[in-house]
């Protein structure tokens, strides 16, 4: 790894706290709206894993691209999509970032170079390699981040993508959000090799492991990771060890893990962790925290109001848009 940078200043730390809180409160609001039947379909919440998305996406440049999973609301918000456009998408409204066609699992924003929440586990990995290949072939110095869970490591597309990424020297940052379960199947019940960095390393991929519950170390690692990929023009795999505090989706009775285990991980809550570090250093007051919470609450409520007031895309517009006809005549 490179030389570590000096500890982040207070403004940076408060920004990180705000980012993680925005995700947490957004997800909590989504759960509430799901209960109120305003949001339907599958809903996968990111509570507990916030440090990974915040650390990595804050290290990217605005012209860097990323691919996400179906647990990607937070990633979208941190890359710069508005709460309004994401919430309206959750509501299935025309004002949503995908006109209400994608929903929770399929947020996109070409403007932010966010190429989607993908709901086929592992399916985005080859596309990320292709994006990196395009950048390399065009001589661009932008990079592509690709988020996926530990479940994706079992897919054949993981194997194919790791091999191609190294073989073709593509500038792709593979971020494995290892939350220990692929839906309800524990990693050690799914993988013969549970050391995922070792697995990635077997493709001659540079591979690191990071504590995904500690935002400050996550941010520093992400900074070095992005720098590695951009300057060496090679892929890098970072396993981020993290944990989701909530169920896999809204339909999951959580029979596969114990309450004790969840409670144990909640003691490592990245938001509480950063807050307490900052308090210990007298860098945050209760008023600061309160102010951040209030700003976020207003932003989210504004998003909900916006979504409530928005209408659905006209059916005909949606139907006629499956194929463009220009170009081929």
């Amino acid at each position, binding site marked *: 790894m490179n030389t570590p940078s000096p500890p982040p200043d207070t403004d940076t730390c408060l920004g990180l706290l705000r980012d993680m809180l925005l995700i947490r409160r957004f997800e909590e609001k989504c759960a509430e709206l799901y209960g109120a039947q305003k949001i339907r379909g599958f809903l996968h919440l990111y509570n507990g894993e916030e440090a990974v998305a915040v650390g990595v996406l804050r290290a990217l440049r605005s012209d860097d691209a990323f691919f996400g999973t179906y647990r990607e609301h937070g990633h979208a918000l941190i890359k710069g999509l508005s709460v309004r456009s994401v919430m309206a998408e959750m509501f299935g409204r025309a004002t949503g970032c995908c006109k209400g066609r994608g929903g929770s699992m399929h947020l996109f924003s070409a403007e932010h170079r966010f190429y989607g929440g993908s709901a086929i586990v592992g399916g985005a990995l080859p*596309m990320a390699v292709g994006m990196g290949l395009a950048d390399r072939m065009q001589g661009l110095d932008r990079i592509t981040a690709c988020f996926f869970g530990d479940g994706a490591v079992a897919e054949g597309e993981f194997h194919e993508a790791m091999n191609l990424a190294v073989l073709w020297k593509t500038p792709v940052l593979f971020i494995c959000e290892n939350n220990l379960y692929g839906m309800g199947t524990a990693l050690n019940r799914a993988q013969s090799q549970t050391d995922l960095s070792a697995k990635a390393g077997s493709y001659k991929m540079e591979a690191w492991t990071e504590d995904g519950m500690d935002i400050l170390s996550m941010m520093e690692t992400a900074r070095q990771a992005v720098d590695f990929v951009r300057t060496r023009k090679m892929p890098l795999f970072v396993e981020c060890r993290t944990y989701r505090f909530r169920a896999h989706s809204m339909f999951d009775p959580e029979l596969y893990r114990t309450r004790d285990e969840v409670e144990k991980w909640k003691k490592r809550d990245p938001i509480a962790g950063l807050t307490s570090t900052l308090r210990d250093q007298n860098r945050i007051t209760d008023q600061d925290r309160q102010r951040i919470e209030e700003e976020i609450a207003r932003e989210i409520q504004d998003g909900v109001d916006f979504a409530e007031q928005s209408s659905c895309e006209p059916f005909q517009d949606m139907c006629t848009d*499956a*194929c463009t006809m220009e170009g081929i005549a």
Partner: protein
Amino acid sequence: MSPKTATITYREGVREGLRRALLNDPKVFLMGEDVGRYGGCYAVSKGLLEEFGEDRIRDTPLCESGFTGAGIGSALGGMRPIVEIMTCNFSLLALDQIVNNAATLRHMSGGQCPVPLVIRMATGGGRQLAAQHSHSFEGWFAHIPGLKILAPATVEDARGMLEPALADPDPVLIFENALLYNREESVTRDYHTVQCLRAVVRRPGQNVSLITYGGSLFKTLEAAAELSGEGIEAEVIDLRVLRPLDTETVLESVRKTRRVVVVDEGWRSGSLSAEIITRICEQCLYDLDAPPTRVCSEEVPFPYAAELEQQCLPQPDKIANAVRRICHGQT
């Protein structure tokens, strides 16, 4: 022969199309298994590596899903990739990428993320390659909204369809019937593109419409020539574009001839032929003088043995017999 024309093979036609696309746009590149040093499984890309280099004539490992997905990603990233899949049976290994990603991304993203990707693959039987190298899956892919499906039968189409396909903002799949690669045709020396929207009447006639595409076109034309000697003038329509289907040209012909046989190398059940006949029934049933019928492949995994495999495929005599049945009520 006119100095303005030349006789070339279908293979050379595809290669010429590739060369032109590579010459005209630096963002175009070809990737697939053995497209480079080997020269292409069917020798289509032979010589291109020397001319365009390893970056743009990119050999891939055996990972259809991986390199097809990489094609999608590079298309999103500003390139114009042409992915070659050796044979359409292998495309099943890339179905996730083609169906879940290439076909969906533009629509699902609310129009933000078009995937201007071209995928070429060989299709069809008749080469004694048995049940994992001989099938015709273009009808399957034609089921998928978000994809465009081209099936060039003539050398002119094989050469001229690629550039318009690359210009399309959506993914286009081109199915090349492998039996056609050696077929020769006289084409204009000057390279030109062709339209990729409409079917074409390859042989005009007034007694029966024969609707087909790809490798079956020439068997159908052969049957039509034979029937002509019996006083049956068949109109032969080459669909060329399997999705979106040019229903208009089909209906126009059927309304005129009042009889129709669809020739489709796919399996009968749930086939493209079923779709075409359904559209005909929906829109001009009362113009018909006989039930619409079809000649498809036998519903078995294709066997190796030559005589058995040939019997599995649509053949001129089967096509002619189908026509005789609906024209005279005889076999």
